[in-house]
């Protein structure tokens, strides 16, 4: 009876940091515009609009995007209208599922101030900290590149928004140490990972085309490893992100430890419904629910271990 029910009614629902999600899919921040909202009904378990900052940012001058093998490099520069105007338009993102807000600041104080604005906004179910900004406090060094600054930001945000789950979005470099720091500072969950620093060159024009972050299927194995490694050392849920383009990809991220999975660049080249449908088929074929997938491979040590190199 139980088995049959799994086959007839596929269990897509998961729970992330106490927030029930109808599906484990979440749009990666900065990849879903309000103009595209009409195309995605029913796909995502939560909404996650583009990162917002304390004041408006124009973003970087073009060119901002360049195609690379199985991926793209972008350097948008967090173009956004600032949190005040952003929140004025937030109702558009109300599709009947929880809304997560991605925030970024140049300083610890900016991150905390953003959280203070969100703390009383009951439209907001969770806050994702985009911990990958250039650091104006430390003379151009990558902000939150190390556990010390991750700890500082998460601690300040935890104090500023005690009533909502906080997800810390980490870059790949030093991800395990930073994950530990974020968890011990009070993060309720971790988004692993952001784009990878990358560069494209136009040899004919002899100039740098785009210096930014690499996304797309090219980075999926890196992201899988990061999720696998991180979910083995933390007890908070992990949201997988990086190169997901198919339902099988979603399953892979969940199997190595993700509770939910973000879809980003893939939504530029596919209808996200197709990804959700493929994932649903995977669950049906295997007689599993989404929640049962999470971490299924965590308890199985791979035969090759971590000998690497």
């Amino acid at each position, binding site marked *: 009876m139980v088995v049959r029910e799994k086959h007839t009614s596929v269990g897509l629902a998961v729970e992330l940091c106490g927030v029930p999600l109808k599906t484990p899919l979440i749009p990666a921040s900065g990849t879903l*515009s309000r103009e595209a909202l009409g*195309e995605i009904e029913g796909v995502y378990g939560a909404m996650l609009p583009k990162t917002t900052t304390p004041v408006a940012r124009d*973003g970087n001058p073009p060119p901002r*995007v360049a195609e690379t093998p*199985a991926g793209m490099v*972008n350097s948008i520069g967090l*173009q956004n209208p600032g949190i005040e105007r952003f929140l004025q338009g937030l109702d558009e993102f109300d599709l009947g599922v929880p809304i997560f807000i991605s925030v970024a600041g140049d300083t610890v104080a900016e991150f905390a101030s953003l959280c203070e604005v969100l703390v009383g906004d009951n439209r907001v179910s969770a806050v994702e900290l985009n911990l990958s900004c250039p650091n104006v406090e430390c003379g151009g060094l990558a902000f939150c590149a190390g556990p010390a600054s991750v700890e500082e930001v998460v601690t300040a945000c935890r104090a500023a928004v005690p009533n909502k789950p906080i997800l810390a979005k980490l870059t790949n470099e030093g991800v395990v140490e930073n994950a530990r720091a974020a968890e011990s500072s009070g993060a309720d969950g971790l988004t692993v990972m952001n784009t990878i620093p990358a560069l494209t060159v136009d040899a004919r024009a002899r100039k740098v085309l785009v210096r930014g972050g690499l996304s797309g299927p090219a980075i999926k194995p890196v992201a899988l490893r990061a999720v696998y490694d991180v979910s083995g050392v933390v007890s908070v849920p992990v949201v997988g992100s990086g190169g997901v383009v198919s339902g099988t990809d979603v399953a892979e991220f969940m199997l190595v430890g993700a509770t939910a999975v973000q879809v980003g*660049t893939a*939504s530029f080249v*596919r209808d996200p419904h197709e990804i959700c449908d493929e994932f649903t088929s995977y669950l049906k074929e295997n007689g599993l629910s989404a929640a049962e997938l999470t971490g299924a491979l965590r308890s199985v040590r791979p035969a090759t271990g971590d000998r690497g190199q």
Partner: protein
Amino acid sequence: MKFYSVKVEEREELGSYTLLRYRWPQAPVEPGQFVMARAAGYPATLDPFLARPFSFYDYDGEVASLLFEVRGRGTALLDLASTIEVTAPLGKGFRIGSDLGRAALLGGGIGVAPLKILGRYLDALGVHHDVYLGFADAKSAVVAREFPGADVATMNGSAGTHGTVLDATGTLEDYGAIYACGPNPMLAAVKLAVGNESLCQLSVEERMGCGNGSCNGCVVPVRGGGYIRSCIEGPVFPADVLVW
């Protein structure tokens, strides 16, 4: 982004360019709008990963056509494909009124594409217009035969006037409307050459990631500061909005 698989009905070599036709009965196409297109085969073909933006060359209510130049792997595969994947028509096209007096249509290189469908619409509205086309050389100027009566210029002088499209136009000040599409340096020159920028509309060429406003990759700088997206707010802009 939703893509539709469509069969290529016809393919025609026009000098340096390819004209590709496919059946599109779904949604109307406005002059200046574009599609994201790629050779069919996803997800087997993850590289190239992104689709490419193309202005509509023409549309008759049933068959849509795209004009493109093979510049890289994406367009090379498109040039060979018997089935392609396209989005619905995207973006804001040319604003067309019937009371604008005589219109000038300026195209540079592959930027001549949207002038075909635009000219058809202007004809239907009874708006007289002159077409000026600039190309690198005679081979790329072959497409000019699809624009009877157009004045042609080539950079190397191998066809028409020797020079840029603006060398073929003379003064633009007598026109009630000026529509231009081409590389950004050409559009900037057109912007400078027109007397009244508010009569001029420019269709920009920008690198695009998604085509539906999500990635913010295809922005252009605007008066008053900041950037706006050429896929949603454009690709056609009033000239006085842009900062070039």
